[in-house]
């Protein structure tokens, strides 16, 4: 199965085509095909997972190798090798364009996670999107998205990865704008697409630079060359920076994060799948996949500040702070996603590869859980509204399952022991501290504090207090709640895969295997750090609970913005999302549309056209001059002159012909005499 992993992306792709053609005629309007295909992919992914774990165990002789600072040997040196399966699409001299799969621990993990979450989202959507105006197309696009994400994950060369990347971008655009008849939705879709596009420029340039640096598009080759020092540091830095721009766009890092909150205009299952668990982590996946390039390019191993960690750290904070001022539950979760993605990127930036991937894994589960929970709330509780302040509140009484699962998800997100988020977030913090990135450690802790706080606010506003909406809230049907339960189970259990406190390192063994990595630090479990992080989170919950759970909300801070101008200004700053949207729209785009475009037009009309016209006039004048002077005077003069000269010469020569024979005879004899003399002298 491992070498036939290409089936896994293929089946949903086929599903996409089938749904488009046949979906409308089927009894359940195509969703049965969608679920079948994704279900099949999930089954295959599980088989792949089992076989891979088998392979890891076989290679290690049944026992897991534990050690610190263990570097995974590059394939071919006796280390665990990845499973490659590719065929050549086209070969042009030395350049080979291949299509194929590259299965190593990372890919296997992603396959499992993507198919699992996608399957749950598909099942959830059957009820959630019931009666929707474009039900069939929705499922077709969901299938296509799943196929594209899986293609991206198993890609063995950067071009294939790019194809998957672009396809998921397109599906995101299509699905965000699923209800495009309402202008805000289509605007959000366009914003998402264009913002990620800006990042994609960096990605493409990075891929091209890497191709020229490594001589191949093959990821294994690129990683081997980067690890082996065959590529100059400058080139690695350049390509890593360009790829980082791609990551910033796709994974919602500062400053290209502005599309994520607006993307919440799409259906909630879409948000759960694409903007929480899968597509947005494509950037992180890219970083993990080509990690040697980043590690060497940004000199991560040497400690100190680097762009990746810095951007990740900044993103953590700005995402978390903005989550505090949202009324819309989905927007809270969107900013939370931005913040958590910041964690993952920062983790990569400090050299905590396993931690980043582990956090990606756990985050997928509890974030998807939270989104689907929000969807459940809106479906059955708040009459399809997401506004917490006006339509929700006190729903714990009416939607117990949703409430419990949502709380579990929030606690996991906040990083409370022993839920999944704790293990993964803690590992990031430990590695940061251990590698000497103290600043980022502090940032991470502060982020944890903020995360716990805003999630508590969110939980309170949604499930506690008085019900402020209208209609009759009730629990959601099982198709909605069962996925929630499954995801909450994973949120609890997934963490234990790498629960280092108990000496379990399965995650690392299974999924770090056969990945091309530079020597990494694997710090051991640090109880002190664990205690600190949990404490920080608990403090966050506590403070938020204090502020919101009181009878009088916000206590002494109530109406602060109305009383205090500075607070008001700060609030407005946050409300306007740091004015970043205004910056992008009015300053950058507006500046180009307005003055710069007008200036270009002026240059075009006067300078460029002026030059062209002047050349035209000049040529016409030159032609006229040529005609007058050269043609008329010189050329004709020459021709006429030649004729005249001939005539005059003839006129002169005429005199020789006197008609007198004796004259001719004289000439003749003179010539004879001269010639004979000459002849005699010569001989």
């Amino acid at each position, binding site marked *: 199965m491992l070498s036939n992993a290409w089936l896994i992306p293929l089946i949903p792709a086929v599903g996409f085509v089938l749904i488009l053609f046949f979906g409308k005629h089927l009894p359940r309007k195509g969703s049965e095909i969608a679920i079948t295909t994704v279900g099949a992919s999930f089954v295959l992914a599980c088989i792949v997972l089992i076989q891979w774990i088998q392979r890891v165990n076989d290679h290690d002789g049944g026992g897991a190798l534990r050690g610190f600072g263990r570097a995974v040997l590059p394939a071919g040196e006796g280390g665990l090798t990845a499973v490659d399966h590719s065929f050549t699409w086209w070969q042009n001299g030395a350049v080979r364009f291949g299509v194929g799969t590259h299965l190593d621990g990372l890919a296997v993990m992603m396959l499992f996670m993507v198919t699992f979450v996608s399957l749950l989202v598909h099942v959830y959507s059957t009820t959630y999107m019931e009666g929707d105006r474009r039900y069939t197309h929705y499922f077709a696009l969901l299938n296509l998205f799943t196929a594209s994400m899986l293609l991206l994950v198993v890609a063995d060369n950067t071009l294939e990865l790019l194809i998957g990347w672009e396809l998921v971008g397109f599906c995101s655009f299509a699905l965000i704008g699923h209800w495009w008849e309402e202008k805000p939705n289509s605007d959000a879709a366009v914003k998402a697409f264009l913002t990620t596009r800006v990042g994609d420029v960096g990605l493409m340039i990075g891929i091209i630079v890497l191709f020229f640096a490594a001589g191949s598009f093959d990821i294994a080759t690129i990683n081997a060359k980067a690890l082996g020092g065959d590529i100059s540091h400058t080139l690695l830095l350049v390509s890593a920076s360009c790829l980082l721009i791609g990551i910033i766009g796709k994974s919602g890092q500062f400053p290209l994060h502005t599309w994520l909150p607006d993307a919440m205009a799409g259906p909630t299952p879409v948000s759960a799948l694409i903007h929480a668990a899968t597509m947005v982590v494509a950037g992180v996946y890219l970083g993990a996949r080509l990690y040697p390039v980043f590690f060497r390019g940004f000199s991560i191993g040497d400690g100190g500040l680097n762009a990746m960690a810095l951007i990740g750290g900044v993103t953590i904070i700005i995402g978390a702070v903005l989550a505090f001022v949202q009324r819309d539950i989905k927007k809270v979760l969107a900013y939370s996603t931005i913040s958590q993605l910041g964690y993952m990127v920062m983790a990569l930036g400090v050299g905590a590869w396993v931690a980043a991937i582990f956090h990606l894994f756990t985050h997928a589960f509890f974030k998807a859980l939270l989104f689907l929970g929000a969807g459940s709330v809106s479906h059955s509780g708040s009459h399809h509204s997401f506004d917490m302040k006006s339509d929700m509140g006190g729903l714990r009484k009416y939607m117990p399952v949703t409430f419990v699962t949502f709380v579990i998800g929030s606690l996991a997100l906040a990083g409370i022991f022993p839920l999944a988020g704790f293990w993964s977030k803690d590992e990031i913090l430990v590695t940061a501290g251990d590698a000497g990135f103290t600043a980022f450690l502090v940032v991470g802790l502060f982020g944890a504090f903020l995360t716990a706080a805003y999630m508590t606010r969110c939980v309170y506003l949604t499930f506690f207090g008085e019900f402020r909406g209208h209609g009759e809230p009730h629990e959601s049907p099982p198709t909605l709640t069962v996925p929630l339960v499954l995801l909450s189970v994973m949120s609890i259990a997934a963490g234990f895969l790498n629960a280092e406190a108990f000496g379990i390192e399965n995650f690392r063994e299974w999924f770090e295997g056969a990945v091309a990595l530079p020597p990494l630090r694997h710090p051991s479990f640090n109880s002190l750090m664990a205690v600190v992080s949990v404490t920080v989170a608990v403090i966050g919950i506590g403070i938020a609970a204090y502020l919101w759970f009181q009878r009088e909300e916000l206590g002494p801070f109530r109406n602060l913005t109305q009383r205090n101008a500075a607070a008001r200004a700060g609030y407005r700053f946050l409300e306007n999302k740091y004015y970043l949207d205004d910056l992008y729209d009015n300053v950058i785009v507006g500046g180009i549309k307005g003055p710069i475009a007008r200036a270009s037009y002026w240059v075009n009309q006067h300078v460029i056209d002026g030059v062209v016209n002047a050349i035209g006039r000049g040529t016409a004048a030159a032609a006229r001059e040529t005609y007058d002077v050269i043609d008329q005077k010189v050329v004709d003069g020459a021709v006429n002159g030649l004729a005249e000269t001939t005539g005059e010469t003839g006129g002169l020569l005429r005199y020789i012909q006197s008609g007198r024979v*004796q*004259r001719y005879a*004289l000439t003749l*004899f*003179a010539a*004879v*005499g*001269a010639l*004979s*003399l000459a002849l*005699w002298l010569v001989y």
Partner: protein
Amino acid sequence: MTAQNVAFWGLAIAMGAGAIGVVRSRNIVHAALFLIVVLVGAAAQYIVLLAEFVGITQFFIYIGAIAVLFLFGIMLTRAPMRAGNFDNDQRWPAAVVAVFLFGVLIALLVNAFGHDEIKLSDELLRVSRTGPVADSIFRNFVVPFEVVSMLLLAALVGAVVIARRD
């Protein structure tokens, strides 16, 4: 200084003077008479060179026929009997050319035949008798002989045609 030499030189001087006279005389008839002197001298030279037949032929034809013809021609063209200037305007260029040509020829001849001698021997006498000449004409040169007769006929007829008054 043999007898032939003396004869040659005497004849040569006479011929030379006659030739100058032909080209410089102011009287046509005198010019014709000078030509006759040259012709006679030539005939004598042939006899000195033991070419008897040629000499006699020269005598008969040139002097007997051609010179007479000239005199007739002078008469018929009403050539002025008195002295006149018969030189055209290219006298001096002509003189230059003639002298120049003479000089070249002398140089060439001296260069080429400087030391050659004519031996007037019995063998020569035997060879250049009329008999061998006739043999030669009618054997070796019979074709040119016939052609020449044709030529004479043509010339005769042609002259008549040209000079006919009609």
